[in-house]
């Protein structure tokens, strides 16, 4: 099956810093989503982005489907950005998402 690799696995930053999270996938996809799981366990959808670039406030994401990767950018980090960020992809022909292992982001005040 499709492999989804996220990097880095852990990231510790000071408030105000910028960060880039990467998601590599091993096969063609028709669906790619980024999620944030906060420290209380709640999963929030950030982006639905099978290709192209999207921005939402301090967050933006870019997916280059032909090169099989996606990037999530967080600018001017805040402590509320802490948590685990998951990339999930939908393989071509499959009606489901496969999740990566996540990047744990810690923003210190």
């Amino acid at each position, binding site marked *: *099956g499709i492999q989804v690799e996220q990097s880095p696995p852990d990231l510790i930053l000071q408030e105000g810093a910028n960060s880039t999270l990467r998601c590599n996938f091993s096969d063609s996809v*028709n*669906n790619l*989503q980024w*999620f944030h799981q906060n420290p209380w*366990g*709640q*999963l*929030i*959808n950030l982006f*639905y982005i*099978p290709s192209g670039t999207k921005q939402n406030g301090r967050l933006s994401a870019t997916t280059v489907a032909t090169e099989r990767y996606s990037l999530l950018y967080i600018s001017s980090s805040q402590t509320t950005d802490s948590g685990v960020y*998951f990339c*999930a992809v*939908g393989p071509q022909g499959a*009606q*489901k*998402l*496969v*999740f*990566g*292992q*996540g990047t744990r982001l810690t923003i210190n005040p």
Partner: protein
Amino acid sequence: IAGITQAPTSQILAAGRRMTLRCTQDMRHNAMYWYRQDLGLGLRLIHYSNTAGTTGKGEVPDGYSVSRANTDDFPLTLASAVPSQTSVYFCASSMDYRNTQYFGPGTRLTVL
């Protein structure tokens, strides 16, 4: 608007017992999903349903069953719970499988 609700919030269960986790959405989404989340293993799909009346197997379906009698409800049943089913269970829904998935708050299940 409630979105997706799950019940119970948490449960401790004796091995061998039958348990049904409930999931209800009020967004009229066609597709619904059940995932389990285990430390170090991310989220893994158990079962899914693309529309009422249909279901499909995910990555880890063994020991679980689902039904989709109507659009809003998607219960997950453990027929005879085992300790390896200790996990946090998340229900999700989307308009269809290519659209944004929305997650419920989760059910923490401990099987002793």
